[in-house]
């Protein structure tokens, strides 16, 4: 039987490839935004309302050098990772139960439609009653913010798998845990990944908001607490530095962690277009 040969591709010029990259356009937009901020802040000339970009960056720099901001960030991230991992783990268990039984399916459907629209922050008073002021309360609201969107996405992903693919898997005699791990999870991975992404964004937002409301004990506060205390002391530049940190960490996780994960999985597999 004749072998099929691959078509030949020619390379685009190197310079054109650089300019076609989205990174380039993003940097231009970012620079324009930074310039607009600096100019407007200088024209306004009110450091209490809107510090200049330069003042914000120098506040950021000194907060990093003093070790206060890195410490606060680490505290926030530690709580975040705990809550995120716990939320994703519980979501996996819930989805497994929902996939294995009809009752589980109904239960998950009902619970997600009840709790998904409930903002995690609204549970903070309950969390304070149950767990008191401190990390357990933060973890509780983060778990709530992660669990439902992730479970919803996984469940929807499982249900959207092409019936032919399921039959092809069953044809190999697969069943139970192996079928779930080797067929269902990878087949639903585009939705699972987008669920993890949404879950991350929700968790990060919820954490910062909760830290702001909290007030906690000053020693163990995170970035939210850093922002809150600086506002109370009218250190607006430091408030902006805190916000910048929140944005930067969000961007970093999104563009490094999730984008790489997307590239080496669903884009490589053709389940999502590049």
């Amino acid at each position: 039987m004749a072998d099929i040969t691959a078509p030949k591709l020619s390379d685009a010029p190197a310079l054109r490839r650089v300019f076609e990259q989205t990174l380039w356009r993003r940097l231009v937009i970012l620079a324009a935004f930074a310039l607009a901020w600096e100019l407007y802040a200088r024209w306004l000339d009110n450091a209490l309302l809107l510090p200049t970009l330069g003042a914000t960056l120098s506040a950021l720099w000194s907060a990093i050098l003093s070790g206060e901001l890195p410490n606060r960030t680490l505290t926030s991230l530690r709580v975040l990772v705990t809550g995120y991992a716990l939320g994703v783990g519980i979501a996996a268990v819930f989805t497994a139960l929902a996939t294995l039984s009809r009752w589980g399916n109904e239960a998950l459907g009902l619970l997600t439609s009840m709790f998904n629209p409930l903002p995690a922050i609204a549970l903070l008073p309950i969390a304070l009653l149950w767990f008191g002021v401190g990390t357990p309360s933060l973890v509780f609201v983060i778990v709530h913010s992660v669990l439902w969107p992730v479970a919803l996405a996984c469940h929807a992903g499982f249900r959207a798998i092409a019936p032919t693919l399921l039959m092809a898997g069953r044809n190999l005699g697969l069943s139970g845990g192996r079928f779930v791990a080797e067929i269902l999870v990878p087949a639903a991975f585009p939705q699972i990944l987008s669920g993890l992404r949404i879950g991350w964004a929700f968790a990060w937002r919820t954490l910062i908001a909760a830290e702001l409301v909290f007030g906690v004990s000053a020693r163990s506060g995170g970035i939210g607490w850093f922002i809150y205390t600086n506002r109370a002391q009218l250190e607006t530049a430091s408030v902006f530095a805190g916000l910048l940190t929140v944005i930067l960490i969000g961007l970093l996780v999104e563009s490094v962690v999730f984008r790489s994960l997307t590239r080496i999985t669903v884009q490589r597999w053709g389940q999502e277009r590049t």
Partner: protein
Amino acid sequence: MNVAPRLADLAGDAASPTLLTLDRVSISYPTRDGTLTAVEDVSLALSTGERLVLLGPSGCGKSTLLRAVGGFLKPSTGEIRINGEPIGAPSPDRMTVFQEFDQLLPWRTVLGNVRYALERGRSLSRREAEAVARGWLKRVGLKNFVDAFPHTLSGGMKQRVAIARAFALEPALLLMDEPFAALDALTRRQMQDELLKLCEETGSTALFVTHGIDEAIRVGTRILALTPHPGRLAATFDVPPGSRTRGTTAFAELEQKIQQAVFADPELDHG
């Protein structure tokens, strides 16, 4: 009621042992508007080495019947036996090649798809599975594409992978559910020829579903025509090896004969 004589009549080659028997199989399922009978009272027997084609227009239940043989759905009444044993859940012993291109695992390469099937379906070690998989991919002409992911392949190439995967598992019975229906006419003809060659080389036993008369004559040793709504057996045609070559008078005559017997209504021609 004694159905044994009827089954014996239906068996094509008396010399080979009977591999698969369908005994008065009916399949119906509930729909919103009531119970739909897709297949009614079908009995047939398939001997080892035979390639039986179920031919019929859309809605004659031929694919439903094939899924039942695959174990993906249960007949409402009647019994399906393989080697005398009632069939159970889907098993690599009855490998199906589906019509849809998404039967391959998108997260595995071409080689990965076939190798994984061998690891799970035939419990081969990774190294053995890889060697067997490479051999089969070479046989279907995909030697240069072993590391490609399925989404980068054309429809015809995806079906080649699915065919390689099915043959590699050395099933007792190959099930083909219109594997070439979604391909263009030129590719389809080429794939039919190549499939015929593989079947003859391996002496595989196959149950093949199609709505194309020419495809049925090309790949089958025996053709069972079904009528639609509900699916019933209408007529049987033997395909002598001399009639299997396109462009010959024997091929054209058999095609004409089946055409007149089954697709009396010209609207139904070629589904």
